């Protein structure tokens, strides 16, 4: 049996008040777990609860010791006007440019505010996706991506990543169906 990286038991999370859960699941190396559910079900909140980014009101999260987690959040800081290149952005998370789609590789030394919205989103996603990590948390990764970007992401995820576990929150059911090895439905509280 594959190694369990993380186990959530009766997890209830929120901010001032609980907004998500209870939820039970575990994540093993090599697995791509999808969290699906309606808007407002608290899927993003549950992702943050896995590393202590929100208040856990009930249940618990157990993780293997020494795990590195990479979290791609749904909202990103506004990068307009900041003289930062794609290569510098990737270096922040320690991500590698190797494997980037060709339509981004030749723009790595451009300022980010010269990229299209889709290119910028893919680069931000790539920075978290390929950072050194045991667990990769992706929150609505296909948002703002064009079809080519979604296809590239799905193909990349579909390749073997036996030493990592992924959790994907997405309203894009086609992407969830295409890449996830297991899907958990998250209902509103």
């Amino acid at each position: 049996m594959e190694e369990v990286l993380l186990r959530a038991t009766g997890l209830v999370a929120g901010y001032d008040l609980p907004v998500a859960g209870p939820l039970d699941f575990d994540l093993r190396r090599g697995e791509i777990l999808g969290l699906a559910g309606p808007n407002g079900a608290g899927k993003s909140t549950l992702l943050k609860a896995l590393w202590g980014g929100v208040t856990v009101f009930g249940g618990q999260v157990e993780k293997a010791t020494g795990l590195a987690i990479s979290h791609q959040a749904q909202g990103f800081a506004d990068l307009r006007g900041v003289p930062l290149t794609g290569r510098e952005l990737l270096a922040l998370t320690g991500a590698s440019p190797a494997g980037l789609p060709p339509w981004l590789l030749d723009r790595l030394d451009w300022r980010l505010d010269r990229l299209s919205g889709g290119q910028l989103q893919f680069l931000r996603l790539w920075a978290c996706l390929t950072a050194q990590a045991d667990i990769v948390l992706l929150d609505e990764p296909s948002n703002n991506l064009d079809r080519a970007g979604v296809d590239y992401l799905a193909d990349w995820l579909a390749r073997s990543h036996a030493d990592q576990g992924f959790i994907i929150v997405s309203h894009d059911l086609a992407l969830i169906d295409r890449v996830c090895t297991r899907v958990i439905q998250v209902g509103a509280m």
Partner: protein
Amino acid sequence: MNLDLLVDPLFRVPFLTGLLLAGLLPLIGMYLRLRGEWLAALAFAQMASAGALLAMVLGWPMLAGGAIAALLASLAKGLAAAAGANAYALMMLLAWGAGVLLVANHPLAEQAGHALFDGQLYFTGEGHLLAVALICAGVLPVLARLNRSLLLARFFPEFHQARGLDAGPGLMLFDLLAGVVIALATVSIGVMAAFALVFVPPLVAYRFGRSWRAGLGLAAAIGTAGYTAAFAISLAFDQPFGPVCAVFLVVIFLVPGVKSDRL
């Protein structure tokens, strides 16, 4: 116009003091702008000037008074982080009011007040130069170490936290460094010259820098070149340094902006 003054040994110490600051202040400004906190620079400078004036009235070294006031301001900024720009505006009003009242009511503070507000850096002495050199030597490596953490906390806050990294201590350290550097600059080259060097070179660098690293270099280059030109102009035409520096830096920003708009 007396160009001989430019090579007068009397002005070497003030020039070198300002030159070091003109290279360092824009770097501080790059990170303040990154965090949308450039207004904090003006608050720190105003607090430092009020602190320096108060120290003078009490018979303490102005440098120490300015540094303590700016450190208190940076601590207050950290504690009142949620207040954002409101906190800076309140600090500026408090410091400006206190400074002007000290100048108006205490004869000792009057001359020093004018030097701080007008930016008469020709009164800068070897003590200032030594302090600025030591601060530069200490701050530059720390800034280099904080660079990645400050950028990560700005652009990937969840990634940063999920890694188990707490951005708080780094941000607090940066605020303290910014407070000390701006306080030294305020006491050495005046309130608005210090603010202009924190604010304008990064404004140009954000617009024209080809990368973050190049932007840092560009900001420092604009700061030192603008400062040198302003120093020479103010000396040659016997004008107060602060206003000349501020106007010259704004012109540096406007001229390429107009050209690129025409293109």
